[in-house]
């Protein structure tokens, strides 16, 4: 068995943080993605313009830089806003909150394109049928459109989640105690860099494999209403 010098527990704790970060960012990102896609397909020009600027900027900037901008910038921005309301104490944004914001924004920008493609692939007849049955816009979205969009978007979203899972490692740069940072700590005390980074790599690989299995299960579930043609 590999000797981890007692850092095994630490690495597992790191894995829990990594998962928490990934799932929280996924949640934020999915909402941003749906909003972004709706805005891109909106008839209001300003919405389309905002969504376009959002996806272009986020997708053109390195994720590491996004994390750094949010981590260092959020404090400045929040304090400026709080200052307007007469609150002058120091506000600090934690690494976790900054990570969720940055990775959520990134996931949302890519998810916008996935959702947009899926929304556009729903035939007009589906919309018309829902309206003919007397459904309002919200009910139509939840009952008719979203389940179909979900099925079409799942493979794309699954890929994005795998990217997100790997991007969580970047938040270790601003001090979040995830797998990567735990590995760094272990390396600085044991000097066994290759061993610990390889263990970290295999932990990410394991998380990737688990996610892939889950996504393929969800894909099967989402398309259970379809008969095989």
């Amino acid at each position, binding site marked *: 068995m590999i000797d981890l010098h007692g850092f095994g527990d630490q690495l597992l704790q790191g894995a829990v943080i990594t998962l928490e970060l990934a799932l929280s960012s996924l949640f934020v990102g999915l909402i941003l993605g749906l909003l972004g896609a709706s805005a891109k397909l909106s008839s209001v020009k300003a919405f389309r313009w905002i969504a376009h600027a959002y996806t272009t900027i986020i997708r053109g900037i390195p994720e*590491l830089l996004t994390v750094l901008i949010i981590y260092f910038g959020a404090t400045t921005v929040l304090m400026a806003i709080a200052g307007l309301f007469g609150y002058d104490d120091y506000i600090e944004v934690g690494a976790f909150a900054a990570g969720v914001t940055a990775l959520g924004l990134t996931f949302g920008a890519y998810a916008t394109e996935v959702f947009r493609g899926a929304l556009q692939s729903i035939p007009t007849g589906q919309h018309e049928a829902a309206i003919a049955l007397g459904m309002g816009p919200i009910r139509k979205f939840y009952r008719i459109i979203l389940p179909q969009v979900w099925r079409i978007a799942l493979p794309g979203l699954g890929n994005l989640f795998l990217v997100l899972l790997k991007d969580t490692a970047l938040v270790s740069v601003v001090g979040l105690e995830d797998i990567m940072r735990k590995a760094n700590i272990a390396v600085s005390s044991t000097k066994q860099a290759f061993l610990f*980074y390889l263990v970290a790599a295999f932990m990410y690989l394991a998380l990737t*494999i688990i996610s892939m299995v889950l996504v393929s299960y969800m894909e099967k579930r989402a398309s259970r209403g379809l008969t095989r043609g």
Partner: protein
Amino acid sequence: MDFSVVVEYFPRLLEGTWVSLQLVVISIVLGGVFALPIALARISPVGWIRAIPFAYIFFFRGTPLLVQIFLVYYGASQFDVVRESFLWPILKEPFWCAIIAFTLNTSAYTAEIFRGAIQAIPEGEVEACKVVGMSKYQMYRRVLLPRAFGIVLPAYGNEIILMLKGSALASTITILDLTGMARTIIARTYTPMEIFLAAGAIYLVISIVIIAIFRQIELRQNRYLGTLSIKVPDKG
């Protein structure tokens, strides 16, 4: 916010940009060279030849680039054998470690793109090559690879942009690329927002230029198709 620091330090940011571009160009070229044999081995009819590139691609696409960089830069020096070998002058330089990590990483992604493209070519074209009596080498050189090149372009353009964004990780191993330079300037001026936003704008401009270049090459390469567009399998 005070953007006069951006003006003052702009030449330094450009120095960093130059390092970033070097990292990207060298890694992309080397990665492309390695990717072709990996892709061809990946579609080999022999089981064990297929297995090796599969494991390679799975490892490099399934783990964070940051781990890969640290494995090369910090990991290699754990072994005395490495430190005494002729490779040490290269492996102690952060720049070359970044190049090695990026090349390995991008070659795995690019190999998958190439594989997808080769497999996207209709079976009929392979059969046609055989009918006119081409050897396997001729078939690849004259038909399959040029066709694959046209199909590959959009995904390959994306990969270059991903590599550009990935190159920011070089800053974590003390390289003064665009991100590294920005962090150094900030350590002196304490103006994180201004400098990071300026660096972000430079990355954005480079991305947009890459997209524009690829759109042009794509139009040229696929002009024989007329207005028809080819569907390219998405990269994971």
